[in-house]
């Protein structure tokens, strides 16, 4: 079981499209679209009824995170929550998040078995990607600000490196990517994995590394050694999937 997601949009196409996108990275997460009105075919708008039944469908016991688009989608979602019994209400979160980025981040977080609060926090932390100052976790520091990459002669610049072959069937998919990125974020080190920021779940997944492919890591900074050791351990254990 994982936390479920409900995507509330004025447009049924947007709601379904967001789920299509997020499901690529989180195939096991229950995501339910509540887009458009209750009419058939749906008009542009939102419907209390639709959100209510989507919530029921998405809630598998671990809670649901609701992602919305423009104003009235938020209002409709709020109303739906007000009609719920306190017990059901306590398992639901309505984060302030950008719909597309927030949904993808929430789905990835849910895929790794996180709690409803962790999933909601992931959604809120995923920012609109047109703000280059706060692009994490969608784009690496290097890509966001090419001028600011570390010069090679920085004191912290002697890298610790490692390379391993991925032994598990699913390779570096959403769950291990999220686990790796989270662990590396806690360390005081800059980590690059196959050329991308090792602290970015999205970029790690974008590598699409499968079974038998090589994962190369390079770390600098005070905890570079710990970072490489952590990655080595995780990869060799097949991310716990062997």
């Amino acid at each position, binding site marked *: 079981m994982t936390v479920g997601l409900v995507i509330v949009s004025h447009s049924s196409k947007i709601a379904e499209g967001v789920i299509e996108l997020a499901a690529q990275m989180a195939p096991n997460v229950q995501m339910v679209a509540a887009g458009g*009105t209750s009419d058939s075919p749906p008009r542009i*708008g939102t*419907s209390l009824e*639709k959100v209510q039944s989507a919530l029921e469908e998405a809630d598998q016991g671990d809670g649901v995170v609701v992602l919305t688009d423009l104003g*009235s989608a938020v209002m409709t979602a*709020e*109303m739906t929550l007000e009609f719920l019994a306190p017990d059901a209400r306590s398992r639901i979160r309505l984060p302030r998040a950008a719909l597309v980025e927030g949904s993808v981040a929430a789905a990835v977080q849910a895929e790794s078995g996180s709690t409803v609060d962790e999933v909601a926090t992931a959604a809120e932390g995923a920012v609109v990607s047109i703000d280059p100052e706060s692009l994490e976790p969608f784009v690496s520091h290097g890509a966001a600000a090419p001028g600011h990459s570390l010069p090679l002669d920085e004191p912290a610049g002697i890298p610790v490196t490692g390379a391993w072959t991925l032994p598990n069937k699913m390779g570096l998919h959403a769950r291990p990517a999220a686990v790796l990125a989270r662990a590396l974020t806690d360390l005081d080190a800059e980590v690059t994995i196959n050329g991308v920021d090792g602290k970015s779940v999205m970029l790690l997944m974008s590598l699409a590394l499968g079974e038998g492919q090589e994962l190369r890591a390079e770390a600098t900074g005070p905890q570079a050694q710990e970072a490489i050791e952590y990655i080595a351990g995780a990869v060799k254990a097949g991310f716990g999937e062997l």
Partner: protein
Amino acid sequence: MGLTAHWAEAWIRESSKVLTEHRAELIELDRVIGDADHGENMQRGFAAVTAKLDGGGQDTPAAVFKLTAMTLMSTVGGAAGPLYGTAFLRAATALGDAAEIDPAAVVAFLTAARDGVVARGKAEPGDKTMIDAWTPAVEAAETAKSAGASSTEVLEAAANAAQAGALATEPLIARKGRASYLGERSAGHRDPGAQSTALILQAAADTAGREQ
């Protein structure tokens, strides 16, 4: 005699009729500063409520308002759904199971409705929203009640103030809702939500006048 469930039902049916008559006008107001769906959404929502009222079984004004609220929330589609839905739901809660609405109860349900819209939409007076019709309506109702007006007179005062409030949104710059994306370009146009509020409250006053 106060206003009964019979009046509440007549009010909603009259609102449906008036919103249908003003459909094109509301669409035009919304086309200029919004997404051009307010007229259609309101007509559709109130038509759905009318169809449900045909089923009967609403014995108190609150029951009529609650049915109205639930139906609008699922059929309007736009922001007006949750906003008017909340307004009617809060109005129903304020009335409880009272069979008749006296002038104090009129003020109480209008106030509850306005507070519900504020809580839901998080808009303030002057943001160019339906709050700019609801707030003067509530204030005028309170004044009329204090002066000893009947329930019908309280509703008439509220309706007149709501229409004045809707007109007064024309020079404002929208700070909430879809029109806020337009910024200064929203000035010079009346807010469609404020106008639909004025129409609905006018229907309340007109039907109350016919009941007594």
